[in-house]
């Protein structure tokens, strides 16, 4: 019996070992899935109705929010750079400023080396389709696969991209472009007027369900093909921000031939064909993207100080959602460039002589608090002002962001074009003043429970946030403590992503957080425009005709000086009415190996660009 047992034991042990080995062998797998396009089509039931509403793209589908820095507002990972005059490449590079600017040494010609460059992306995304995505990460990667019609080398300064000449009519409703005639897509088909028309038309097609790109096209009407290399883009109303829109990768032309061959369902998964310095070699969703150099490339932007094909022969983008791991891969040499460096690790990286750390003030809207004006007591100006005064921004930044960032002043961050200092002094941290404001408005604590009342109603507000997002939870806790000091009770409702969206879209919230990137002051539209209220991105549910007009006027103004004035007035009104609390104007934090030369921080630092960059030995 003993013998029999031993036999059986060894058989089962052997089986187990075989299983383990089998599993080990079958492991790596995973390349680009080759899926047959099915008919996800069906007739478009909705006419393309581009609204003038700007970039309101909150990244609902951003599942990566679980690990990523993840505000409930998550808009930042998705948002359109709404309009004209992007902030520049002038990054506040803490270690090597020169590298962040677009002005470094030329690195003669294209001494194409064979260096593989690895970039650590902070989270996943839906599809590698710049014309349809909601994720700015896709825009970041895609910038290397496609070329925009125009480049923006400095705020409001445009350089030739795929377009060589451009002009607009006086009221900015018609734009004419002459296109380069020597450009081919990666699939060998020629780049021409039809390709541009195809790209724009696809973006507004409801079937595409485009997000960022759709917003960037504004009141798009149509593209007219004048001849093979000349187009006219027509808008339903004035659209001054169009050049800024064009300078992103979201509106960049893609190959119609490739799209039609692959089909809508798999485009952006198995294939992406543009004209850029890199071709897509493989894309493993949620894992990595491999780009290889386009050897025919000869139409790069002038500010990159390079000609011909890119120097880095291969760029591997690895998705590493866990922040600690991401930074560890830089330190271990597995990656060369890391985005979203955790604040807590930033100073350590700064001190390390092997790395260059870059901190770029983010343009857009900072980490902030939206207050639902339709739900009492948030309709009470005194309550909103008291909350402003009681918010300890410095303390919050020190605690939550490890001191990185700057106390917010108004609806656009310090780094955004049109920012006005005037609002910074309006609400200094002052608990006494906050208490006094509430007393005067009739909010008193008569029963001594520490919570104020007025007409029998307790001053209790419901704050909604995404519980899985660490930053959101921390902000919620901090706010609760701040407001307890002035007799406001905060009920914390931490929910999952979908539960959160359900609640705030229905307007159940008194308060919620917000954060958004975007290079144009038109981002105020996302926060405050009436049409974005009632379930949209204006979760302040702020409906005010005067504000709507101010926003429209500012967006339609083509004179830069006047435009700045108009935005100053908007910022003042936002703070006079105490519509939102702006806690922190954050920094984009990057780090890379010192061996990397000449990376460009394109469009306000949101888009690191590696055409023209190289790795030294």
């Amino acid at each position, binding site marked *: 019996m003993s013998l029999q047992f031993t036999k059986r034991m060894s058989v089962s042990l052997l089986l187990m070992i075989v*299983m383990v080995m089998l599993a080990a062998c079958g*492991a790596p797998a995973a390349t680009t899935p080759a899926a047959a396009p099915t008919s*996800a089509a069906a007739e478009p039931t909705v006419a393309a109705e581009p609204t003038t509403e700007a970039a309101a793209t909150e990244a609902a589908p951003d599942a990566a929010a679980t690990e990523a820095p993840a505000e409930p507002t998550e808009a930042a990972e*998705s948002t359109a750079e709404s309009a004209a005059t992007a902030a520049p490449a002038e990054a506040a590079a803490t270690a090597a400023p020169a590298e962040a600017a677009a002005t470094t040494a030329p690195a003669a010609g294209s001494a194409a080396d064979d260096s593989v460059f690895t970039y650590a992306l902070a989270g996943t995304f839906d599809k590698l389709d710049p014309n349809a995505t909601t994720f700015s990460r896709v825009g970041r990667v895609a910038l290397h696969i496609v070329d925009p019609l125009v480049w923006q080398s400095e705020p409001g300064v445009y350089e030739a991209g795929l377009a060589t000449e451009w002009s607009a009519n006086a009221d900015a409703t018609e734009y004419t472009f002459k296109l380069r005639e020597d450009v081919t897509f990666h699939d060998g088909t020629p780049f021409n007027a039809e390709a541009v028309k195809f790209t724009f038309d696809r973006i507004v097609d409801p079937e595409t369900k485009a*997000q960022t790109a759709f917003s960037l096209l504004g009141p798009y009407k149509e593209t007219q093909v004048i001849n093979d290399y000349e187009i006219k883009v027509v808008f339903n109303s004035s659209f001054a921000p169009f050049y800024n829109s064009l300078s992103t990768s979201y509106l960049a032309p893609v190959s119609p031939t490739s799209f039609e061959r692959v089909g809508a369902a798999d485009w952006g998964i198995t294939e992406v064909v543009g004209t850029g310095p890199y071709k897509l070699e493989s894309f493993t*969703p949620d894992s990595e993207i491999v780009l290889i150099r386009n050897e025919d490339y000869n139409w790069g932007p002038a500010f990159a100080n390079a000609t011909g094909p890119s120097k880095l022969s291969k760029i591997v983008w690895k998705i590493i959602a866990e922040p600690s791991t991401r930074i560890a891969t830089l330190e271990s040499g597995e990656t060369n460039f890391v985005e979203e460096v955790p604040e807590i690790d930033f100073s350590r990286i700064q001190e390390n002589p092997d790395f260059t750390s870059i901190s770029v003030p983010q343009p857009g809207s900072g980490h902030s608090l939206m207050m639902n004006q339709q739900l009492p007591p948030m309709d009470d100006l005194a309550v909103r002002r008291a909350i402003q005064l009681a918010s300890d921004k410095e303390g919050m930044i020190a605690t939550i962001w490890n001191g990185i960032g700057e106390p917010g002043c108004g609806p656009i961050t310090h780094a955004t074009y049109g920012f006005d200092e005037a609002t910074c002094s309006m609400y200094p941290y002052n608990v006494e003043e906050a208490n006094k404001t509430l007393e005067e408005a009739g909010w008193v604590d008569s029963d001594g429970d520490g919570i104020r009342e007025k007409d029998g109603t307790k001053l209790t507000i419901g704050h909604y946030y995404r519980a899985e997002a660490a930053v959101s939870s921390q902000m919620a806790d901090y706010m609760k403590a701040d407001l307890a000091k002035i007799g406001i009770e905060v009920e914390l409702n931490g929910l999952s992503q979908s539960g959160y*969206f359900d609640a705030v879209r229905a307007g159940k919230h008194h308060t919620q957080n917000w954060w958004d990137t975007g290079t144009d002051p038109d981002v105020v539209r996302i926060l405050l425009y009436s049409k974005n209220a009632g379930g949209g991105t204006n979760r302040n549910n702020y409906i005010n005709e005067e504000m709507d007009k101010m926003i429209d006027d500012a967006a339609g103004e083509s004179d830069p000086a006047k435009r700045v004035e108009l935005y100053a007035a908007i910022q003042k009104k936002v703070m006079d009415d105490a519509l939102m609390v702006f806690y922190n104007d954050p920094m984009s934090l990057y780090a890379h190996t010192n061996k990397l030369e000449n990376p460009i921080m394109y469009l306000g630092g949101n888009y690191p660009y590696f055409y023209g960059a190289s790795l030294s030995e």
Partner: protein
Amino acid sequence: MLRYIGNRLILAIPTVLIVTILVFLMLQFIPGDPAEIFLGENRSTPELLAKVRTDMGLDRPLYVQYTSYMWNVLQGDFGRSLNNNRQVSTEILNRLPSTIQLTFAALAIAIVLGFSLGIISALKHNTWIDSLAMFVALLGVSMPVFWLSLLLIFLFSVRLNWLPAIGQGGIQRLIMPAFALGMLSASTLARLVRSSMLDVLNQDYIRTARAKGLIGRTVVIRHALRNALIPAVTVLGLQFGQLLSGAVITETIFSRLGIGKLYVDAILNKDFTTVQGITLIIAVSYVLINLIVDVSYAVIDPRVSYE
């Protein structure tokens, strides 16, 4: 025995079906509309929303959604993700090998480490070796997987530069995640094996075996361990589930492409097709593992018979 296995396999079918129905119903209770999640904010007009809902098939009654999904699955079509339109079968097949590899490697580590620690500390009962082994086991139980993972990365990738921190493929990329994942199970197992070994070693038949003059090793392996094995194997079957859920964390930290992370993301996005696809896979493998455990009772203990 074969008949027993056959019966169990037939019984597995309703089990798996019930699991998928339950998961399907649970998804309905999670707040949020997949169509709205998919669309985001920007273009969420009622018309477009209605169109997306139709495209996704969400406008049909629940039972139709479920049955048509299962019908397609029976024909081998797992559908496309509601959230990103990728083929669910491709997504799962791309990730499954990596998760299986990780889970089994962790299981192997748990078995080897758990049994050796357990047996050694039982044999050296009340010595410093016993204390040390149990201290290690205590550490393993107390350390959260994510923390142990980060420590491993810090030591072996950043400081020593011996092992790559991320990705899959090759034993090098497997060691750290498997160890991090297997440590908890190993520790649980070690404590269990130790106590049941101690139990068995005090039995009369062990004294008899020794009295017969059998050498130590034979007594331990053939007489003691074999009897101590039953509770350990039971726990091992249950550990499998724990390993699968632990894989979510390890896969995230070590940036491995795996089922776990896909599952969590799909649930958060209410991506019904992806969730169901993975649920099916997990349910089936769980049923199989537990069948293997039950069958192994008969192998280990001749008193158990399924004839």
